[in-house]
């Protein structure tokens, strides 16, 4: 189930937010090797403030399965603060009041079947739905080039802002993504998603937990209920290579800048 956590309802989610920051530590620090600040086993940064909004998908065991963070970019943004040297001159201002930033997106759900990709699509349509409602017409972000193919296949309309370049943990590129009714409609149709994809709780309505409250909300709503990921299975991948080893190998194949550049050139043509 996808939950939207904002400053309005974060008091309901203190346990879940801790779980989210622990999951981010596992994904970004332990698995991807990013050098990020970790305290008490949780990864947080300066953008996890009152203005941050978290879309969090929980699996049937009530663990964090996926998440993405969005935040208005009119005061500060990761892109402007840390990656401005990647941005082309003359681009539309990031702090124009109609731009939000997306960051710290991840999914721990494995699998390649449509049902899995549909849940990832739900996690990626939710920011677009929220932005539309707020009168925002663009997202910006900085992403590892390897994620671009997934963004594209989910249905995000992305323009690359400049060329990809090493950012310390791989090759990254700044981008802007269109927020429009047309994009949301296309993604919703392609993946058969409910509208909106997220549940936004304002109270527990007598339920013991946010999960129970969410279950009560979707009891008669199978389209939204199917966005609940199953608990991870115990089956290990073959060969002992594992996801981390496979990821490391995939990363090493893009270590050559010319290869990475070539791959992004291909993607940008398709985008």
């Amino acid at each position, binding site marked *: 189930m996808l939950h939207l956590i904002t400053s309005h309802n974060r008091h309901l989610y203190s346990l879940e937010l801790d779980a989210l920051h622990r999951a981010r530590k596992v994904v970004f620090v332990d698995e991807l090797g990013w050098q990020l600040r970790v305290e008490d086993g949780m990864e947080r940064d300066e953008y996890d403030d009152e203005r941050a909004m978290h879309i969090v998908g929980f699996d049937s065991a009530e663990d964090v399965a996926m998440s993405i963070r969005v935040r208005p970019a009119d005061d500060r943004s990761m892109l402007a603060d840390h990656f401005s040297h990647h941005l082309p001159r003359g681009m539309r201002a990031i702090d124009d009041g109609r731009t939000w930033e997306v960051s710290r997106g991840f999914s721990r759900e494995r*699998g*390649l079947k449509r049902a899995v990709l549909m849940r990832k699509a739900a996690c990626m349509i939710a920011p677009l739905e929220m932005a539309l409602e707020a009168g925002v017409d663009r997202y910006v972000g900085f992403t590892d080039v390897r994620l671009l193919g997934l963004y594209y296949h989910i249905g995000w309309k992305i323009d690359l802002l400049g060329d990809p370049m090493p950012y310390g943990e791989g090759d990254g590129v700044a981008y802007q993504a269109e927020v429009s009714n047309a994009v949301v409609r296309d993604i919703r149709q392609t993946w058969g998603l409910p509208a909106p994809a997220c549940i936004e709780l304002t109270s527990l309505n007598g339920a013991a937990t946010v999960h129970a409250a969410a279950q009560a909300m979707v009891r008669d709503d199978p389209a939204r209920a199917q966005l609940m990921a199953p608990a991870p299975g115990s089956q290990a991948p073959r060969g002992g*290579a594992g996801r981390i080893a496979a990821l490391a190998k995939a990363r090493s194949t893009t270590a050559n800048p010319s290869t990475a550049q070539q791959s992004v050139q291909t993607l940008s043509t398709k985008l």
Partner: protein
Amino acid sequence: MTVSPPHIRSADEIEDWFRQHVAAVAGLPVSDVPGSADFESFGIDSIQGVDMVTALEAWLGLSEDLPLEYVFEASSISEAAQRVSVALRDGTIAS
């Protein structure tokens, strides 16, 4: 100038391509990637999966996107290769 029509790969050729790609990503010898196996059993995640389909599109010289379902809803690598091959031959996917 005469332009030759693109070569339509056979199911066997596509299966070999899949097996080599999966072996490279998973760090295994190709012999450890049987056609009867499912892609998911090698721990390939969605990013790697999309990368693979993008590379396959380039290798096949496709002029349009290959729906992910052709590959990932298959129960085995062999079945995925068969699906793609059939779609190429009957024109469901434009090459």
